């Protein structure tokens, strides 16, 4: 009997969706100031690595999470410096970050643990326990990672920030028309740097969930393209926090359902492509409405435009 909705599917959906929507939120803070970041996957990988080894050495998962945030922020600084400071191509920078992350993590694994495959096991982030007795919600939030809760709060907070605060309006204007923003005295570069750094720190956070949220180790190239699915979720969600959350939950559900439907005639590989195909279809048929910030991916070069 194939079940479309069961406690285990819901729990798996949440677990798969969490790094996606936190990562998508990270991508959103990049793109809302006009910086495309295809290095999201590499940043998540670095975050996963930093979280695992810090958690291993300090024996504290939360310090691991902090390390993931910091490594993400650092890579964000690099990305912003290349794209904003040096006015280089955003995609090039992202590709460099991805290659850097996948080679550097293996390099360090080898140096630190003499093992190219994975890190030693480390303490993982806590989960809600004993919530099973709460009616309806209980079975769903039981075993939910604290990081999922934090992620959901971040979605709410980001929505409020973007649409109900002055800084949010200014931030959005930077991604739409930085020249106009600059002419009104908005410190465009500062917004770009800060937003990219925050966004990449969030990507690092998403990575920490992979290594010490679901599992308790870091394994080589463990993101397996989740950074790209997060990017897809952001686009699917039309560059909004709630949209990104919705898309991530949808993708998460599809993958969770597939995992729970073992023995089914549909091969796993076919289900895995659903998020990618869904994004392609959305782009193909609602491209005009699924429009990103107007200055997305372009170089801000006052005086030359």
């Amino acid at each position, binding site marked *: 009997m194939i079940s479309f909705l069961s406690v285990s599917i819901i729990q798996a959906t949440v677990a798969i969706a969490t790094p996606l929507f936190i990562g998508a939120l990270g991508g959103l803070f990049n793109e809302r100031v006009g910086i*495309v970041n*295809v290095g999201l996957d590499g940043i998540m990988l670095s975050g996963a690595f930093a979280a695992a080894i810090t958690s291993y050495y300090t024996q504290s998962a939360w310090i691991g999470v902090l390390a993931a945030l910091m490594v993400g922020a650092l890579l964000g600084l*690099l990305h912003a410096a*290349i794209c904003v400071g*040096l*006015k*280089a*191509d955003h*995609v*090039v*920078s992202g*590709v*460099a*970050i*991805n*290659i*850097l992350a*996948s*080679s*550097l993590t*293996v*390099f360090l694994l*080898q*140096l630190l643990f003499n093992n*190219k495959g994975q890190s030693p096991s480390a303490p993982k982030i806590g989960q809600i326990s004993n919530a099973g007795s709460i009616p309806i919600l209980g079975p769903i939030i039981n075993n939910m990672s604290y990081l999922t809760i934090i992620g959901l709060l971040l979605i709410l907070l980001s929505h409020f920030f973007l649409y109900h605060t002055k800084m949010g309006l200014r931030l959005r204007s930077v991604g739409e028309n930085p020249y106009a923003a600059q002419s009104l005295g908005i410190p465009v570069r500062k917004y770009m740097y800060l937003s990219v750094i925050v966004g990449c720190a969030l990507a690092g956070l998403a990575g920490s969930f992979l290594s010490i949220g679901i599992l308790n180790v870091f394994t080589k190239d463990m993101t397996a*393209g989740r950074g*790209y699915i997060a*990017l*897809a979720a952001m*686009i699917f969600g039309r560059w909004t926090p709630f949209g990104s959350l919705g898309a991530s939950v949808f993708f998460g559900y599809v993958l969770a359902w597939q995992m729970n439907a073992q023995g089914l005639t549909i*091969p796993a*590989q*076919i289900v*895995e*492509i659903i998020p*990618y*195909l869904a*994004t*392609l279809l959305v*782009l*193909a*048929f609602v*491209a*005009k409405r699924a429009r990103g910030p107007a200055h997305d*991916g372009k170089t801000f070069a006052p*005086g030359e435009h």
Partner: protein
Amino acid sequence: MNMNPIKHFIWQILPSILAVLCALLIGAVIIIAIGENPLQAYTAMLQGAFGDTSSWAETLQRATPYIFGALAFLVAARSGLFNIGLEGQMYVGAIAAVIVGFSLHNLPSFLHILLALIAAALAGYVWAIIPALLKVKSGVHEVISTIMLNYVAYALTAYLTVHVYHEPGAVAQTYQVDPGAILPALMPPSKLNTGFILAIILAIALYIFLFHTPWGYNLRVTGLNPGAGRYAGIKSKRIILWAMLLSGAIGGLMGAERSLGVYGRFINSFSPGYGFTAIAVALLGQNHPLGIIPAAILFGALENGGSFMSLQVNVPRELGLILEALIIVFIAAEHFFRVHLRSMMKGDKE
């Protein structure tokens, strides 16, 4: 600024050389940080890459997919597209070549290889049609669509390997191809094969096409200023479509060279990221069909030499990959440097 050709040439390649030097410098810092001697490490690397004919062969073998990949990337890039989907085009090309390779028998080797290569090119071409059409018809940015298609290609080839053409073994793999479909090795036991020659010929052909024919001119105009191209009667949509398809076809050939020339079959997720590293090679080679050849050989050397180095000194071979990533970072910086030096030389206009 009136420069003679030699000065012009040096000016052109200077940023690439500086980027490599800067990356090596940071690499040296990393080596020192882990308590090894950078000079020793780099000497070992150099020796491993170019020490004798067999190391040369291995270096060129590793450079071959980068030549194909960088050519594929630059054809699209010169028309204004960022083809980040080489990985996917490579996978479908590799498996298409293999399917032709093991499905047909008793053909003359030349014909069999030709058919397999055509199949690979067609597969890459088909894989590029989707982003190209999405770009031209709906204005969907190719970066996103090609990334999505990379994963579709991973999954598709994995499905075919595991469920359809599966041959038991240590790794997920397909049947072996007919011996006649194997690209002949140039310097056995090295896996360097005739695919390398094909790549070089392709590079020269693309150079002539881009810089000495009106069609190449049209392609470059489209990439640089489609608005001006439009008024000059250049149909940018058509050019973009063709450039992307050509790019995809070359991407398919990149896969065929690996599967027909190196593995003799399709191995699931065989690529360590050839399609992405090829972008770095293209940038280091300044998106010039001849410039990417030394760039690809350098990358081949970093990887080949890196393996040898890790046996000689206690530095993981991934250093070679880190150097590759650093080179791209500095290429970005060098672009900035060049723009500024130029504007200082000529003076900014108001």
